């Protein structure tokens, strides 16, 4: 299977295939592929493209897959993920590095994707919430911890918290509750469900250690 087949949402003006375009339309409940709604239109408007807004075709590594995508110079990673690659699990709560809802891993380090330019990470490995579970649907241990402890309420902050935790655990696999709290202190939850969240993430850390031990 070519990577295009594995990625029905992958649509670029350079590389769109008719088959995948149709699959993209079928996959969404309301619609569609990304080609129709590019946040910054990739086709210059009647030759009036603003200077500095010309998109370039980049190759990104997202969730272990190579994704080719047109990206404007000022485009943030959050916008590329959400509006070009269809990875809407990454949320935008503030768009200015204040809330952490957009946290993804860049080379295993938690980063606010609202404040990272996509052009700056083209050589790095990007992981989003969609890339955590195995292909067969087996949840990542941190995801399992959240499910087992009913962590979070509205969950708009959830993917950011989970990605921050997964990143934190890579360097600190055996944190205390206190250390783990510091690890996710860059993430805001307005349901203020912190106590239950921390319990769920602690459970996720314990499950991660179990998995690591085999």
């Amino acid at each position: 299977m070519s990577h295009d087949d594995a990625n029905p949402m992958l649509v670029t003006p350079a590389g769109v295939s008719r088959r995948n375009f149709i699959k993209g339309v079928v996959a969404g409940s309301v619609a569609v592929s990304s080609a129709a709604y590019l946040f910054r239109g990739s086709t210059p408007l009647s030759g009036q493209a603003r200077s500095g807004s010309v998109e370039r075709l980049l190759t990104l590594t997202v969730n272990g897959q190579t994704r080719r995508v047109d990206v404007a110079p000022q485009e943030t990673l959050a916008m590329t993920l959400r509006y070009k690659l269809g990875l809407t699990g990454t949320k935008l709560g503030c768009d200015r590095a204040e809330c952490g809802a957009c946290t993804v891993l860049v080379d295993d380090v938690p980063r606010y994707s609202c404040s990272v330019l996509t052009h700056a990470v083209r050589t790095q490995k990007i992981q989003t919430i969609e890339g955590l579970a195995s292909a067969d649907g087996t949840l990542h241990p941190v995801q399992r911890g959240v499910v087992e402890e009913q962590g979070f309420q509205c969950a708009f902050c959830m993917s950011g918290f989970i990605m921050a935790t997964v990143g934190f655990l890579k360097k600190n696999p055996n944190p205390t509750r206190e250390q783990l709290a510091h690890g996710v202190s860059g993430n805001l939850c307005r349901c203020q469900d912190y106590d239950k969240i921390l319990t769920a993430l602690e459970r996720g850390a314990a499950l991660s250690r179990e998995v690591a031990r085999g």
Partner: protein
Amino acid sequence: MADSRLVGKNYVTPDLVAKVTGKAKYAEDFRAEGMLFAKLLLSPVPHGRVRSIDTSAAEAMPGVRAVLRASELPAPADNVTDLGETIRANPKAERALTDEPVYAGEPVLAVAAIDEETAAAAIEAIRVDFELLPFVVDPLASLRPDGPNPRLEGNVWGRAPVAPGQPPAPLDIQELKWTAADFAEYDQGKMPMGKPQVEWSYGDLEAGFKNAALVLDETFSVANNQHHVLEPRSALAYWQNGKLHIHSGTQSAVQTVASISRWLRLDPADVVLITEYTGGGFGSRATGSVQCMIPALLAKKANAPVMMRITREEEQAIGGIRPAVHGRAKAGFAKDGRLLALDLYMVGENSAYEAQADAASGGRYVSLLYQPEAMRSRAITVLTNTPPRRAQSQPGGLQAIMIVEPVIAKAARKLGLDQVAIRRLNAPEGKAKLGPANAKGERGYATSAFIKNALDLGKEQFRWDERKARSGQRMGSKVRGVGVSVSTFVGGSTGFDGLFVIKPDGKMYVQSGVGNLGTESAFDVHRVAAELMGMPWENVVISWGDTSQPLPWTCVSGGSQTAAAMSRAAHAAASDAAAKAKEIAAKVLGGSPASYRLADGRVFSGGRGMTLAEVARRAIDMGAKYDGHELPDDLNKVTATAATAMAGQGLMGVARDTYPRDGASFSFVAGFAEVEVDIETGHYAVIDYTAIGDSGTIIHPRAYGGQLLGRGVLGMSHALSLKTVYDQHYGLSLTQRFYQSRPPTILDIPRNMKWEAVNIPDPETPTGVRGIGEPPVAAGACAILNALSDALGDDVYRRAPVTMDSILMALEHGRPMQDPLTAHI
């Protein structure tokens, strides 16, 4: 439900795996073919009038598809309530766009373009000429004899007098000013108390004060608190075959269709709302957000789907604010701590739009919570040029309790009483009375109250006596204090409908009309129905969040109604289906229906029985009421329509909650906190917090604990940090982003909080359940305030939040240095 298998047990809610994998779609996660993007032009002034707008340059820009002006909005429609009562549209109420903005940041017009950058460029190219109008951002400033008005007509809502026997005049804006004499004590920091809008009382107030061993007279201010929902109120709208399809967050899937159709003057049948996940509401999205009509109208005009992404600054402007309240409480106590008389006056701050009733309603909660022998409550709600006030968790109850709790704490210290003991002495019990008497001279009362049990349980769990012994002791520059607070709010409504069908595949298909805010009540309440039906939970399939599906009439997920109201409705529907199943079994297998029981997906009596799958097949054969072809007469029309659409598919459970209820449902919480204050820096940390709930039977312990502590932290944010700041000279917000007004992070609260519940069923509801969303808030806020005064003594603060600098200044000067009366500082 003593031998319950589902109620009272933890389980994995059906929305959770979608949430942890990123598959759960919130409004901004949907895409539509040919989708345009909308941007808003926001008012740069706190009050102005559009003289002229030139959109020609914007409309000439390539990629711009539509411009929407306020003049293009449909006129506000009257609201016909469920009971057939017509509520006339208020022409001066908040709308989605306006040509007379009454707060800085109010949307004036909107543009749709092929991408957001083009839309933003178009907004920049639009020229608006505003006539600047007088403005005010401080309610007490507006009440001064020569104070400015936020609207041309005045500063309060009121009704013109009418001749006797005539119907009341419609609500309109009027001018209300107090006299200079009313402000005589203002400079001493005592809240002026001029003419109120609302006043009630009971008992002999003067006698109470005369007999009191201690009389306190305290002024205290509770700040505005933005809702700060993490998901901004973005919305996607498109039209298909004449129907509006809209993706938007809300606290009620069912009732938001009614509000959208009213805003847009559409038949509710022509509105499809998709709202499976909502990123926080806290009262600000009760029946959706009026701004969601902007993409709907732009989509119609441009003939293409429109996504309106709301930025954080826009969210802070339009998203909603809990009203600040300036309060003054005069309280008389007997020597033993009994509250003999309470005279409460509250000035509520409002936007220049619809009045939020916090100040007017708060007195009721206080009258229930402390059972004063005599009480007077006075209130006024003053309009200002600040953003719309919306209900926020425990509206009114929070502010009133925050004004009175420090007074109780101070009284206990003056009288040498234990803080837990004085609250227990004054606590309500059983069918405790509240508020003023009605026309017949009768006072209302609660269905039940077990807050005394909660105080006893908390005292033990928190090791109150042990911690109290060490409070006030210095450790270097640190000093600790402990605080306890009680709290209450309404805990359930009645009269809604339940609806489900058990199909021949043996599964129970439940239609949930509850908005999904993650409190999990959208799912939890249906555990009650499954339990009664003896239906294994893995065979229950719940649909929610898509109003093109048949949904029953459902309460708004707000005001702690849902767990009580919708578990009653689920109980009613399950009782209906259980009775039908037994009738079917008796008919097929013999015996009397009453001899049959339901368990494990079967209906059986002794050795004979059948599966519910078989019952479903028989129900379809028998038709009539069994499969929903005949419906009860008392259903809401929304439910009747939904049930008709589901008829003939299996055994239908459908019923309205007509269970009796003697009294009104109120829930209670007792909160216990310990703080450590550094008297050299004014910094303080919350060391520990325990919350004990009294809200009847618990359906889902983990979700319950999340509310008890989570809402408690929302309350703590009132004590610790959150407020709005407005520049008095320019009327502009200085709290537009999280970094300027930041909700507590995980490091701002104790790392290991505890919760527990009394868990005594409410005797006035068949499920025993009361709601728990609201009362944790004031418990969290006031436990912190009271712990601070325990550590530092009385007269350190006179407004909340209590910030480091105010503590330091008060300690240096030996008296409170905060001005409690100026708004937005």
